[in-house]
């Protein structure tokens, strides 16, 4: 296994909208690993992703992505933002959305080439969305839209894939398929997936990190105890019988 360190955070403190959301976070991830970050809403998960992307600057601490500053290595990161934030009626089709992922290889004043379009088609094929190429983005189901946004992140051939609550809009039976896709992608890139859904994440990932302003746990999902989770969520977490994984009875859904 390639043990190259792709993401390294050292004592990172960060504000979001004038509130301190990250306090002294240390995190390290090596290539080819699948990390799930779990924690309550408002615990700083999205902020952490944005720090790795260089969209938010930490007030204190060091961030290195692929050995460089986050801004410089942004061209090697693929990002799928929290899904519910775009205008569903926007006049744009699936191909145009995914083509945005090729922007970096073009830059200002240069049109997308035939090669860009063929790579878009290949990636759409890979996520099973090629037949939807000409459809308006808002006319697709939540799960289909999510696959389009993943295609947009993949078409730039990233070394790190960052996913923010990717399963929130996907029907339960589609989630299995979604995680199978990530399983395949893992061979080519490191993946960081952020979610408040403890049980779904812990089964699939190589490593799990519990974040609620501070990092409470980072390691194998097997080593994650109910006590650690309880500390992350500031509340007791019920371990449901007949399952080898701790579940949290969610009250905020």
């Amino acid at each position, binding site marked *: 296994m390639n043990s190259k360190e792709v993401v390294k955070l050292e004592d990172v403190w960060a504000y979001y909208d004038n509130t301190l959301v990250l306090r002294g976070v240390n995190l390290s991830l090596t290539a080819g690993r699948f990390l799930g970050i779990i924690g309550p809403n408002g615990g700083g998960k999205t902020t952490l992703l944005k720090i790795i*992307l260089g*969209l938010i600057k930490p007030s204190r601490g060091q961030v290195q992505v692929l050995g460089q500053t986050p801004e410089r290595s*942004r*061209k090697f*990161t693929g*990002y799928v*933002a929290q899904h519910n*934030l*775009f*205008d569903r009626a*926007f*006049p*744009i*089709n699936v191909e*145009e*959305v995914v*083509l*945005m*992922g090729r*922007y*970096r290889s*073009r*830059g*200002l*004043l240069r*049109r*997308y080439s035939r090669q860009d379009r063929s790579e878009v088609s290949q990636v759409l094929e890979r996520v099973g969305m090629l037949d939807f190429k000409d459809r*308006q983005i808002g006319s697709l189901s939540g799960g289909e839209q999510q696959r389009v946004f993943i295609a*947009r992140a993949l078409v*730039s051939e990233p070394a790190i894939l960052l996913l923010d609550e990717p399963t929130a809009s996907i029907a339960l039976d589609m989630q299995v398929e979604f995680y199978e896709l990530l399983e395949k992608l893992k061979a080519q890139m490191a993946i960081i997936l952020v979610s408040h859904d403890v049980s779904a994440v812990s089964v699939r990932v190589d490593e799990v990190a519990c974040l609620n302003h501070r990092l409470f746990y980072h390691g194998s999902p097997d080593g994650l105890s109910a006590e650690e989770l309880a500390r992350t969520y500031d509340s007791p977490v019920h371990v449901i019988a007949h399952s080898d994984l701790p579940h949290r009875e969610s009250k905020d859904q």
Partner: protein
Amino acid sequence: MFEVFQYQFMQNALLAGLLAAIACGIVGVYVVAKRIVFISGGIAHASFGGVGLGYFLGMSPVLGATFFALASALGMGLVSRRTSLPEDTTIGILWALGMALGVIFIGLAPGYAPDLFSYLFGNILTVPTSDLVFMLVLDIIIIATVWLFYKEFLVISFDEEYGRVAGVPTEILYLVMLSLIALTVVVLIRVVGIILVIALLTIPAALARQFTHSLSKMMLLAAGIGALFTFGGLWLSFVLDLASGATIILVSAAAFLAYFGLSRLWRRKRRQS
């Protein structure tokens, strides 16, 4: 019935209508898709300060409006991006500030302001050829800019944060987009006036959106619809002897309401059968 179109002033009016339709078709699509209608209204009204400045300094009010529209576009864009003030607050302040400056400048100007009303509500029948040339130049700038930055404008309209991640210079391009709105406002002032600009920026694009989900096709369609509205409104205003700018807006709004009314009826009927 159409012999009125042989007059020079009528031909100028038609050309002005066409140039206005092209500008509002192209830029209106961004205004509608990116939902920046309010900031566009702010830019339009703030440009009145420039009209007043033109009178005060004895230069062309259209030139003054161009300057004010561009300055307010950049001002609103920068203040809303760089400070923590809410965007709509900034827009509201600059909107009123521009108009207030206009009123003060006109009050200070010697004599009285003869065409003041036409800058507020448009008068397409009095567009001189020199203004047509100016409108044409602005149209060419608008078309060229959108041609150059089409893919960037698409990214920042749809998903600005992703644009930043992808390396698009989003802030600069947003300011360029607002500047295009400012230029469009200037093109439209002669036709429908500062106060009515916002209708021609939104109605053709909003209608075009019902027929396609491609931005470029929307632009062509919106320009065509806009031309139809300005020509129709112009003709009707002449026949009924009504104010041209207001008639163009009424024709546009009537078409808009009719379309949505009919499509609702049609959908209900289809559901029943």
